[in-house]
């Protein structure tokens, strides 16, 4: 894990440094296309009735990679964001370590079009968002019930409000975004988080989605909101500071509440 983190950070900072090079080839396309490479701090809170009736929290690392394509009239973003956290509670002690390791993958596709503009400085984009969420949790203290997961493939409306602001002699963009999945295909573990070890043909991966269903917001309420500040570099490359709040409550045989606060810095490489 340390090696992966090191390589990721090395690529990130190497990209940022070279982005200031004026010899860097520029995009000749009419639209703006970016590779996004980011790293962030993830702060998670969780209350999972499949594990216990205790609220867990913890921090972890959140790299991200994505593609952004934008024109004057549309904004399109594809983002892959894994996060790795270790959650615990204030009730944990050395004798009874209460720990849950989470590996969370989010794959988002967002397509927005400009619906309103005020004075060329304030633009409202609206459209749709498709999001794949898979959150695998390991609570070793539960032995055979230790693997708990939340899966949701969702679609719903999304919107973004961009405000152009001049800062440090550059045209920067402050943005507020919101996404609200309405229809989802979700899966959670069976009752008691059982994995059928007794069955010689037991296939945990194959069984992951066998307990799935299509639901609306009453069974999978998720809200993703974010604030970002994009600062232009040379060669149309950009640096983006962001804060994202991603909350969901998923209900199957029991409920899970999970919230992630993500503070990130991303380098947007124009191509």
């Amino acid at each position, binding site marked *: 894990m340390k090696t992966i983190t090191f390589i990721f950070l090395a690529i990130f900072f190497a990209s940022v440094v070279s982005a200031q090079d004026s010899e860097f080839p520029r995009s000749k396309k009419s639209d703006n296309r970016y590779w996004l490479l980011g790293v962030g701090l993830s702060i998670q*809170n969780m209350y999972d009735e499949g594990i216990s009736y205790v609220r867990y929290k913890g921090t972890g690392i959140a790299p991200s990679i994505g593609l952004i394509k934008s024109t004057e009239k549309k904004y399109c973003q594809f983002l892959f964001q894994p996060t790795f956290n270790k959650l615990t509670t204030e009730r944990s002690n050395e004798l*009874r370590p209460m720990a849950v390791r989470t590996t969370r993958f989010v794959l988002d596709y967002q397509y927005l079009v400009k619906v309103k503009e005020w004075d060329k400085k304030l633009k409202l984009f609206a459209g749709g968002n498709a999001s794949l969420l898979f959150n695998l949790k390991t609570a070793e203290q539960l032995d055979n019930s230790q693997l708990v997961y939340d899966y949701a493939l969702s679609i719903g409306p999304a919107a973004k409000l961009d405000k152009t602001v001049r800062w440090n002699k550059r045209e920067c963009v402050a943005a507020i975004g919101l996404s609200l999945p309405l229809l989802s295909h979700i899966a959670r573990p069976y009752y008691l988080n*059982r994995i059928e070890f007794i069955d010689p043909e037991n296939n945990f991966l194959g069984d992951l989605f066998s307990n799935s269903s299509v639901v609306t917001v009453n069974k999978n309420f998720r809200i993703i909101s974010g604030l970002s500040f994009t600062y232009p570099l040379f060669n149309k490359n950009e640096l983006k500071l962001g804060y994202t709040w991603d909350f969901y409550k998923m209900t199957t045989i029991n409920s899970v509440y999970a919230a992630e606060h993500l503070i990130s810095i991303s380098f947007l490489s124009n191509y």
Partner: protein
Amino acid sequence: MKKIFFLLTIATVLLSCEKAIMPNSESADAEKTFETLWQTIDRGYSFFEYKNIDWNAIYQTYRPQINNNMTGRELFNKCSEMLNVLKDGHVNLRAGFSTSYYNDFYLNFPANFNKEIIDRNYLRGFEVTGPLYHTLLSGNIGYIYYGSFASPYTEDQLDAVLTRFNSIAGLKGIIFDVRNNPGGNPANAYRFFERIATQNTLLYKTKYKNGPGHNDFTEEQESIIEPATDKVKYAGKIVVLTNRKCYSACNFFVAGCKAFSQITIVGDQTGGGGGQPTGFELPNGWSVNFSGSITSLPNGFIIENGVLPDIAVSLSPADEAAGIDTIIERAKTLF
């Protein structure tokens, strides 16, 4: 400044929403911990009907004995006492400073196993392949001792042991000794069964808890072994030795042996453990394990309280004193 204030306001509102929506942790006091423990077992334990246990009556007995002035140790002792009513070795309360176990399933019965005798008089000159200790008895009977299903053996290790015995001219059979094997992973049993199966073989059927009601179960699901096709196989007779300390995955192994006509089970009844262990965490950080399924043989016999041997044999005190394992000696006569 206005913009910054606006953005901070939005962020604060979002954080407040989360605090309002997400439930707080349940109280970690003794009464709440007891209530959660009782309720967890009530909703998840699989053998209430089979064992004819009135769990509500158990609540009425123990609830008045719990109060928030108790120490953690006192609470642990009371909860453990309550859980022992279930008479299930898969039910454990784990408090960190101690873990409760029910072990009368073997303490109330003769051991029928003396490792010293086996080491000194039967395993002398043994070979070790992974967790499998093996040797030849009387020059023509293979003997394997497997002490824990928690110790996995690989396909190659099993190949090596079976190849050894297959290469011995005039081999009469193999004794597979799983006495004092407390269990582990049933997959280690299936690896062995694949080597002796000649056709798809139904081992047992399992139904899992799928709801909070005492009789909320899935349909029975069959555990079927498919014969290995490209691995070393063994086609001869096998005698499996058992005692009361043969528990959990070992109990499943012995139950599976019933499906093979070439296997004879000799010794004492197994200790049981026929439910899949399941866990949940209590509000104070303790955790509880309990059985969450029911497994039965194809003929309907539930294996929770153990599997009967085909030939019941006990270790005779006189033999033991003379360094003889009565059960192994009886097994040798079956080839």
